């Protein structure tokens, strides 16, 4: 079963998306911020990570940068950022580019489709 890690500080959204992913047949783990997310990645070893950008302690971008620079073993792991910004120029980071972007509000069907395209 494909393992997904969903990182989001907003509890309601986190629970809803996790439930939806579980319903779609994925094994789901969640984290509340970047620091928690890094620990979960090492513990769960997910096949794909979906992370919000704005979060306390460590945001999604910082987590991605940390993974790509200090945890090379996860280089192949798709990392999808959930951004509030719609234009790719503002969302992309040349140092640690995300595998893909999703825009809030997230459409569940589109989310499943994107995950399936990578796993």
């Amino acid at each position, binding site marked *: 079963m494909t393992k997904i890690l969903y990182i989001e500080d907003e509890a*309601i959204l986190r629970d*809803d998306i996790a439930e939806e992913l579980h319903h779609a047949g994925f094994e789901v783990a969640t984290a509340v911020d970047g620091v928690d997310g890094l620990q979960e990645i090492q513990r769960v070893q997910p096949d794909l990570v979906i992370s919000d950008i*704005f979060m306390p302690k460590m945001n999604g971008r910082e987590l991605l940068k940390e993974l790509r620079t200090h945890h090379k073993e996860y280089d192949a792991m798709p990392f999808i950022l959930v951004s509030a*910004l719609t234009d790719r120029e503002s969302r992309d980071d040349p140092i640690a580019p995300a595998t893909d972007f999703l825009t809030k509000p997230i459409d569940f069907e589109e989310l499943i489709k994107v995950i399936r395209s990578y796993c």
Partner: protein
Amino acid sequence: MARSGGPLLKRISLGLRTLQEEQLRDSDRVVPAIAISHLIGALPAIFLISSSIEIFTVAGWGALSLIASASYWRFCSWRKNAPVLRSAILREIAFAAWLAFPWALFALLLTEMQTEPLTMIGMVLIVCLSCLASVQLSIIHPAAFAYVLTLIIPAVLYYSLYQPKLMAAFGAIGLGIFLFILIVTISFLLSLPKRPGRASPAENHRALEALAKEQTLLILRQAKHLKDALKQQENINDLQRSFIAMASHEFRTPLAIIDSSAQKLKSRAETVAPADIIRRAETIRSAVKRLTDLTDRILSAAKLENGYIALSLQNCDVKQLVIDCCNRQREIEKSHRLNIEFGELPLILADDKALGQVFSNLLSNAVKYSQGASCIDVRGWQDGRSIIIEIQDHGVGIDEDDLPKLFSRFFRAKTAEGIAGTGIGLSVVKMIVEQHDGEVAVTSAKGIGTCFTICLPIGGPGSAEADFIAALKSSDNLMRERA
């Protein structure tokens, strides 16, 4: 440069001052002009003495000199508009005539002094005045000092010899003119400004170095100003960029919650339990409230930025207002316990809607920045002619160097990194409180928590209490400055 009215001496003094200003401005050209003027001035004196011209002729010359002098002063007032070349020629002619006048009188004294005692006394007085004028001229430039000497030396010589004969006068004047030309020439040469061509290579080098240093300093200073301005602009741009990103996030998160609930309800329409529907409806309402608050905050900030918003003042129960805000906050976020401690508070004259926004902003901030802590303290009491409200959290706190900038628009403290927010809430708080003639203060310790204190005058803005708060505030500022 008064040209009409006032005593003659004052006018003369003003005229001389004008001369001085002119000469200081372009001494390079005026110095030779003075020398030439002195020579021209000496010629009629020699002519008078040698040919014994009648007194009327001398008086006529004096009158012409006076007219020329008056023209010179008049010209001074026009010179700003006159073409440069014309002004220079006119000035030199006028100056020559002006100097000729005392010379002519001095020559007259030498020729006529022994005829009648009264004439002699008059002439002595005129010479004294001429000497006085010359002394004044000598203040202007060293070249003019020579003129004083040429007046005094022949006189001294004449009186020491006391020869009534005309030949003695000739001798004295001749010697005077000789000394005059000598001194004027020397002083003229000495007073010439050093030109780069005449300076030694070492001097040229030093001058160039000094110039280069001065220009470099100027360029560096300008570059610093430009750099500062650029940095300031970049800071503003950064703040605006981060505001757009955060505002976008702040709007889209509640929208995502609403959308998520709607999708859930739609996909599970047939199996969803009534309790779930209620829970979802509550979630949606809470997200809508977040959006409304955010919209209000941004609109208020925009309004306040463009000037004052019109306050609707009425008797306001601040205690009840704060309790209502606390209850609304509990509905949005149940994670924190709000400890409310209020003494008896009088009604105050205020805009309850605007103040409600102040307390909502502070409470939502307290919750947002103290995720690890469980309680927030809200206190209120009366302090003389004001009421004080304190909202204290036990969260991340604020760095000391961020505190002065905390109420600036779009500013976000370092400890707020990763926590959603637009950076406009506190600027709105400050503007609204100040519009009520109140004061907002903040104390914070990083990792321990933050306390916001609001002080509002009971009589509302413009009241005696408001003046009292303003006086306290200014004395506080004064003490801080002194410290």
